[in-house]
């Protein structure tokens, strides 16, 4: 069976013949036409060397099952929440100072003095909660639609690792404002880690960077929060999306699979 793939709305490299009498005085095509031609030339040059259009056609114009609905957008929504956190986080890092004595003041500076500071920090603050909510909604959708079943088990496993990493982002980010609430919440969280049998005490020492909360604790959390965990999340999102593209999405469970109708012998 031949699969008909719709053509993407990418500009082609062919040139339309000029209607007679529309040329400029010097015999060249009009400026509008030249500009369009130049854009097509550049896109064509890149495409010829990268085969990007064939990749994008497969990636963006893949078939989705009948019954695909708004619940299927929760994964993308989670990813865009992550991207929003990444962008606002990078810009917050320009003003933030991860030291025990100056962290709180630098957050106050961002909130009160920097132009749009409270807005960007608010995006990061509330976006964190939004991302956690979206992760769980996305996981619930996958669970209740049975989208974790064969052959998508590996993608479920990757998703669970992403969930844990997202919660780790929440934990490490919570300390950074360094007010009373974030300090004591982190003390409690580190001590909960410490109650794990056998390795707990060493895990707590690792998180604090020593037996007591010290100067290295906040910089440790900062490095985990803005470098290590986001890089892992970005890499795993790549794998997650690759697998979705490779395997396709599932139809909602209320749609029955349509079997091909039995062929009947033509009556003569």
């Amino acid at each position, binding site marked *: 069976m031949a699969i008909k793939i719709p053509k993407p709305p990418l500009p082609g490299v062919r040139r339309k013949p000029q209607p007679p009498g529309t040329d400029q005085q010097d015999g060249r095509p009009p400026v509008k036409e030249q500009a369009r031609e130049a854009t097509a030339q550049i896109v064509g040059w890149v495409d010829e060397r990268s085969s990007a259009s064939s990749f994008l056609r497969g990636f963006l114009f893949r078939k989705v099952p009948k019954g695909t609905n708004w619940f299927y957008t929760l994964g993308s929504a989670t990813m865009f929440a992550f991207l929003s956190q990444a962008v606002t986080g990078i810009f917050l890092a320009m003003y933030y100072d991860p030291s025990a004595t100056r962290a709180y003041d630098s957050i106050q500076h961002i909130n009160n003095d920097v132009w749009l500071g409270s807005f960007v920090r608010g995006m990061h603050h509330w976006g964190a909660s939004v991302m956690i909510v979206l992760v769980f909604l996305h996981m619930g959708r996958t669970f209740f639609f049975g989208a974790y079943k064969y052959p998508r088990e590996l993608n479920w496993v990757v998703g669970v690792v992403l969930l844990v990493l997202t919660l780790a982002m929440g934990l490490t980010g919570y300390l950074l404002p360094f007010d009373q609430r974030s300090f004591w919440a982190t003390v409690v969280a*580190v*001590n909960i880690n410490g109650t794990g049998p056998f390795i707990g005490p060493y895990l707590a020492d690792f998180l604090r960077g020593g*037996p007591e909360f010290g100067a290295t604790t906040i910089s440790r959390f900062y490095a985990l929060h803005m470098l290590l965990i986001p890089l892992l999340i970005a890499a795993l999102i790549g794998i997650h999306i690759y697998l979705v593209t490779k395997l396709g999405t599932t139809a909602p469970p209320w749609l029955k699979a349509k079997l091909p109708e039995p062929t009947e012998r033509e009556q003569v």
Partner: protein
Amino acid sequence: MPGYFEGETVTRRRLFTGGAMAAGGIATAAIVLPAIGFAVGPVFEQEDVVWRDAGAVSDFSPDNYTPRTITLTAGVGEAGKTTAYIRKTNPQLPGEKPGGFVAISTRCAHLGCPVRWVVPAERFVCPCHGGVYDFQGKVVGGPPPRPLDRFATRVRNGQVQLGPRYSVNSQLKRFSPRDPGEHVDGLWQYLYPKRFTTPSPQ
């Protein structure tokens, strides 16, 4: 064997593949292992024993606590400070001999919130999850798994000095310093091995 010359035990291709893998592995390990060691190092580094002045001997009574703020970690401002409740030992209480000092750490033995000595109730009370301790720091209510930790004490030049923290079990027997939430009684104590970072109790 096909692909092998006479008397050969390994082909050129296998040798070079193995060699390239080994070289790559060594190069990766040379970068990754020191980096991991750098991050994990503090787990194995023992803290120095520091004695901090907490006030003159005459400041403390055997019947009530006197709070003193001490700096546990220098250079991190308020975050490095903690409060200790100090009194003289009281021979009327079980297990206490005269002439010593008791310095109770305010770090709750449940999950580390700061407890407060409430004078009318004669109890240490934790604001986070409702841990309650009696005059000696023994648990009388709430979730804490063991009594409040204490600081080692000594007297130098008429000054009471506080040393490293140590934990006690429900009979007030000394244990190596534990993090909050870790049991030191019965079989539970074996779930939580001694850490490398804390000095041994004297």
